[in-house]
């Protein structure tokens, strides 16, 4: 009996090693452990053994069963794992095949840049104001200290509807409208579309976009103007950006400045984008002219303010390296896809 048991164990161990599939494993289970399996059949012969041998043989037989069951379980797990692995391997795909994309469009680059600018100024506590594109001469010029026959009117070639109504040449009329309707403190930015009768070329368009800023309160200084625009330039072009304020003249600000930022491409070393100067002019700015405050009913002795303005199209062109403003209005899908 003992020999037979050992014989079974030996055969089982040898058979186990040869098992390679779950099917063979099942055959093995039937052969040794099934109801008609070798071990089961042998145990049926237990009755013929002497009573004192039975417990011993029984223990050995159970040990063998437990051993085989355990081995079987381990082997099954290993084989299942291997089989799963093989199945998954056979399902391997080419991950370099391009993805299936949902249809997705893009915002126009001008919108994207405007959103970025808005976020910067909203973060500094500015609000967004808007005004009409077809505007009264009064708001576009007179209330901004540009009376009729002022030479500054030549600089901004104006589309007129009639003597009193025109297409706004800048977003500044909204300054006046806001100051008329709202008491200081005022802290706004004004994005919008503006018109000048320039023939179209790579750098000119009769329609373009500006973003304007206005702050009016007690104690506003030119230092504040410099501070705000420096924060803005760093936020837009990167923390290493520097700003340079040069004296200039605008009828609606005094003192006035033109503002250069260090070239975002060459960081001041000089390149094609900045015409090898290291600087790019992007802003006109200044302290709100006392007459402009007066026109809007704000006492220039009590209050002061600053204003600034820039061309959105120009900022977009600088930011994206676009060398022809016409591309912005052509709307070729292959262009729009890039932003």
């Amino acid at each position: 009996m003992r020999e037979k048991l050992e014989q079974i164990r030996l055969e089982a161990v040898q058979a186990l090693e040869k098992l390679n599939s779950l099917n063979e494993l099942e055959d093995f289970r039937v052969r040794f452990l099934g109801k008609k399996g070798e071990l089961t059949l042998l145990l049926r012969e237990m009755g013929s053994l002497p009573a004192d041998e039975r417990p011993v043989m029984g223990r050995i037989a159970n040990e063998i069963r437990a051993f085989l069951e355990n081995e079987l379980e381990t082997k099954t797990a290993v084989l299942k794992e291997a089989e799963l692995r093989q199945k998954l391997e056979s399902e391997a795909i080419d991950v370099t095949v391009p993805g299936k994309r949902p249809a997705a469009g893009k915002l126009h680059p001008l919108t994207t840049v405007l959103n970025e600018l808005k976020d910067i100024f909203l973060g500094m506590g500015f609000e967004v104001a808007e005004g009409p594109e077809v505007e009264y001469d009064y708001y576009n010029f007179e209330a901004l200290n540009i009376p009729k026959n002022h030479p500054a009117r030549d600089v901004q070639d104006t589309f007129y509807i009639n003597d009193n109504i025109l297409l706004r040449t800048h977003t500044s009329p909204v300054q006046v409208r806001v100051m008329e309707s709202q008491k200081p403190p005022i802290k706004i930015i004004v994005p919008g579309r503006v018109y000048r009768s320039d023939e179209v070329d790579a750098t000119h368009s009769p329609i373009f976009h500006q973003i304007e800023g206005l702050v009016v309160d007690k104690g506003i200084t030119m230092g504040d103007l410099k501070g705000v625009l420096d924060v803005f330039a760093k936020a837009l072009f990167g923390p290493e950006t520097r700003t340079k304020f040069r004296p200039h003249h605008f009828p609606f600000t005094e003192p006035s400045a033109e503002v250069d930022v260090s070239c975002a491409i060459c960081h001041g070393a000089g390149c094609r984008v900045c015409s090898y100067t290291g600087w790019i002019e992007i802003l006109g700015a200044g302290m709100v002219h006392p007459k402009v405050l007066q026109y809007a009913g704000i006492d220039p002795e009590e209050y002061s303010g600053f204003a600034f303005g820039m061309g959105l199209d120009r900022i977009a062109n600088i930011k994206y390296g676009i060398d022809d403003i016409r591309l912005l209005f052509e709307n070729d899908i292959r262009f729009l896809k890039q932003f």
Partner: protein
Amino acid sequence: MKVPVNWVKDYTDINVSVKELADMMTMTGSKVEEIITLGEDISNVVVGRILSVDRHPDADKLVVCSVDVGQETVQIVTGAPNVEAGQLVPVALHGARLPGGVTIKRGKLRGVESQGMLCSGEELMLKEEDYPGAGVNGILILKEDYAPGMDIKEALDLGGEAIDFEITSNRPDCLSIIGIAREIAITCGTEFRMPEVSLKAGVGDINEELAVRVENPDLCPRYMARVVKDVKVGPSPQWMRRRLAAAGIRPINNIVDITNYVMLEMGQPMHAFDIEDIEGRTIVVRNARPGETIKTLDDKDRQLTEDMLVIADVKKPIAVAGVMGGANSEITEKTKCIVFESALFNAPSVRLTSKALGLRSESSMRFEKGLDINTVALALDRAAQLVQELGAGTVVNGMLDVLSASLEKRTISVRWNRINELLGLSLTVDTICGILARVGIETDVQGDTLTAVIPTYRNDIEGAADLAEEVARVYGYDKIPMTLMEGSAARGQRSRKEKLLSCVKNRLTGAGLYEVVTYSFTSPDIYRAIGYTDPAEYPQAVKIANPLGEDQSIMRRTLLPSILEVLSRNYNRRISSCRIFEINPVFLPKSLPLTELPDEVLTLAIGEYGNDTDFYTLKGVIEEVADLLGLGDRLCFERSSHPALHHGRTAQILLDGKPVGFMGEVHPKVLENFQLDVRSCVAELDLQTLLDTANTEKQYKALPRFPAVNRDLALIVDKKVTAAQIEKVIKGKGGKILEVVELFDIYEGKQIPEGCKSMAYSLTYRASDRTLVDDEVNAVHQKIVNALEAELGARLR
């Protein structure tokens, strides 16, 4: 304003390099556009004295010259006919560069060694007006006595540098060499030297020669004149011609050159008349009379109007005041006696006249900005002095001065610390006064008040803000510390409209559409392109009085043409599929002609062609936008018509029953007008109204706790029956337990009778408080089927 550096050095010292000077000037407000190096393209050309001229042994037309070029004597072969021994000529030595990139090398001409080249005027880019004799065919013969070997650029003053300044419109005083010299002195802290103007005694008395009458003193606050007799018109000296040329003014003759020289130097435009052309020997400054004309110096006839100021004699206009002289009183070679005019004209008047005549001149662009009443006299004397220095004539004693305005300096009083308050600085009053003194402003301080005496050439300075700018630009904009204002709290958030607009744009791009930006003006003819047949029916648009062209002359009332143009552009660039939208205002006049501003209505337009796009994909996009704005249930689509659209595939879009837009497939003829050879769909919506009406408040609804019962409903109906009709019946009979109605199939063709279609719906029934039993669902479902049969003639399939 082009300023030759050597000229400006007459009035102030420059102790830095030109490049440094340019940077410094830019930072004090005189922006430098460009530094121009004069004569840059000429090198190694010197003055030579021709010692001998011999015949070339092998060529009849060539001669061999021996030329003293200072250090040595060289042999040069030339073909020029005008060389003689003893002449001084420009010699391009071996290695010399000439304008146009020409390099001169030694070589042999017909076997004879030539160590350089003798230059003509043309080869040095000199014209007759630059140097008399420069225009002749042959070598340029120098008239002055120069030492052989001298650099030709030095001899003819062809070198040096000029700085081109951008002068802002508030600083007409800087449209002059002395103005720039003054700014250089302010910037560099050097001394400014006004040119010394002094006259030698002349002859006679001007009152016997000329009278001046100013009839409109408002437009001419000061008119001054001098008379010069025995005038010898001829070329002005080399130094004056070179200075004019370097400043960009063409030399003409000594008298005209003097007027231009003084204008450049002092900033005061001058004019010279031939006194023989002044009838009655009387100058009358008056408005033009109706119908008067004048031929100006540019040889063009000008129609004058009564608002224009002219300089006239007793009969006729002889100049347009401040703009241009008349050809009828021009200085000619025969001129013997002249009148110099120096005057101050009203700035807006000159600007208007110059604009109306389409005639801008060096004179008008100065006058229109407002000039100094005191420089008028100085400039006149300066011109007389130059006449004496150049020996161009005999100055008659005395000058005429018709003056109706004050010559006194203005004073302004401000609270001096306001300057600090505006700039964010804390300068002492002494520092402020010191800076103002540097820019020529005298000050007197009493307590808080600073009284400033403003030079008459600074009409732009009116108050504290202007003084602050003067202080800031000299102190240095870069020294103003950067601060961030305190206390000016503002909310800094997006408006409701902006937030909604941003959501709409993001939804549209998320749905696969690209945002486009197009021009807001268009052609009146565009209505024909979008299907309007009768011009009388074209919608009335805001018209631009001075458009760039007829095709950009009206403000658009619809974005549709722009959208079609973009679709067309992409289609014709072989883009297979294009889905776009634009959000911008359209301009709707309240009445025409415009008396008040038009309504600017924010409008959404969408256009699509290509890949799986059709009426329904576009409609789906609009429904998505409506849902986003909480308007999904309030929007409906009705079959309609539109000139631009396919009759059978056009819908009007209604919000709460009111039209807010339209959509549809583009009419084949309109497609053709836009060179679109592909079915395209477009929509246009009044986004303003949608945003104003939007309701984005959300309220949670409990998730269903009881199961739903689904029933399908396949109907055969007449083709004319619409989905909206069917849905209305279903919903009307479905009652509270009908949760969802979904159309999942429309079919025409086999097995369906001619003129009919099959429409398959999936209905979901559910009660919120119980599990529905079949009987209850069946009863409702049957009611729906019965109503569909009765009301729409539908049959179950």
